[in-house]
């Protein structure tokens, strides 16, 4: 006779990686450039974003700028949205028309 294992009960208070990362409306996208490298997001990273979430200033968003797809910092300036890159080689965009597809929730990198 050995002592019953407490493992099962103790593990009730844990969550899986799936539960930690995935929400009802999460999508993922493969990062294909270094526009956000100073924010720690590099080429080939996988970004998980929440589709349909309303962005607030400072969020990293996936946005549609007149048919071009960008991942940038979202900032409201003088009541207008401005998209900031995290890389000096890319320019700041003040779009006429902008649709935010989702807000970034996590970044995953496999080495």
């Amino acid at each position, binding site marked *: 006779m050995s002592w019953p294992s407490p493992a099962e009960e103790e593990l009730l208070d844990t969550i899986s990686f799936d539960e930690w990362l*995935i929400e*009802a*409306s*999460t*999508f*993922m*996208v*493969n*990062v*294909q*450039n270094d*526009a956000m490298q100073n924010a720690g997001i590099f080429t*080939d990273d*996988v970004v*998980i*974003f929440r*589709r*349909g979430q309303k962005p607030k200033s400072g969020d990293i968003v*996936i946005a*549609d700028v007149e*048919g*071009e*797809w*960008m*991942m940038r910092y979202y900032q409201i300036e003088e009541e207008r949205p401005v998209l900031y890159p995290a890389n000096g080689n890319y320019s700041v965009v003040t779009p006429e028309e902008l649709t935010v*597809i989702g807000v970034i929730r996590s970044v995953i990198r*496999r080495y």
Partner: protein
Amino acid sequence: MLLHVDGDSFFASIEQSVKPYLKGKPVVTGKERNIIAAASIEAKMRGVARGMTLWDAKKVVPDLVVLPTDYETVSLFSKRMHDIIRRYTPIVEEYGVDEAFADLTGLRRYHHTSYEGIAAKMQQDIHGELGITVTMGIAPTKTLCKIAVDKGKPAGLVSISRSRIDEFLRDVAVEDIWNVGPATAALLRKYGMQTALQFKQKPEEYIQKLLTKPGMQTWYELNGMQAILFEEQKVSYKSIGKSKTFTPPSNDKEFVFAQLVKNIENACMKARRYHQGTRTIVIYLRTKEFRSIGIEGTVERVTAYPNELIGAVRKMFERVWKPGYYRATGVFLSNLQPLNPMQPTLFENPVKLIRYTALYGAIDNLREHYGKHAVHLGASLHAQKNQHISSRGDVPLRREMLIKGETKRKRLPIPMLQVKLR
């Protein structure tokens, strides 16, 4: 009150959702079969319809975007759509991949809004989170919900209250009523009923003499009385069916048999996953002319092992096979029962049974590592290779946009936004 949710151009809209650069463009899916499986609203407005050949569709719309069907992504969206509906009510019937019925009765107080308000919230959630539109129909019965949805297509929300049923039925032709087939419609017309309203207003006894039970149910439903019950989420599968079309059609007997065996392997695989087995198996062949020939057979004992079915299946196959061209085969395992514990029959060698259990345990493990059909019966060999070399673009893009750690066989179950980031 009941609610019917119906995805608008579901397969095509999903493509536009994961490839947002296709929004506003005429998009169809079904490239791998050369027949249109779904058309986006833009394609429909320009005269493209489901079931058309790609050839014909391209003639009507030269700039048509043609994509292969991405069943994996469609399944992910389908599950999410049903999950969103379940946020608002526990009583949901998944009616196919892109439709659902939900019972909203008694939930107004809980959600602090009207039935229309609840449906509108669901609609917004689905639109916001999945990037697709759905049409909502609210009514006292399923049949009326269907009519409401027909009126609301696409992306609308139509509610039929009890007091306004008649005005909604006035311009609905009898053949457009849910569950009314061409024969019933013809009969109703013969008796002077052209519209759903005329049908609804006939006395009960009159319809009772004319139609059988399903027709009667429809009459009750049009009169606002719920006659078609709710089938909630199935916990166990009552039957499992697998079928597959192959192109081009084939007259090669062993090739067709191999296709059938592969379906049996697939169906058994699924049955084992749910620890179910069967004694009853139905096989069918579909000819090039879309005629189906089927036959039912039984085996000694509840099983989910292809080896134990194949003897019986070969005999059934020999009975139905006639020389000719076939486009599909299929199989149904019905009357599913728990697989364990398995009862050996009186004259059966139990050692063999234990070996099968071990064998398929191992096969299922190999599948986990090496993909479906890593190990299969020799009889399905012909069906294991692709019959025709698939042309470029026949494979959904998602299968080619793999992220590190994914393989051609297994991908993460999260929808991927398939865009080029600037």
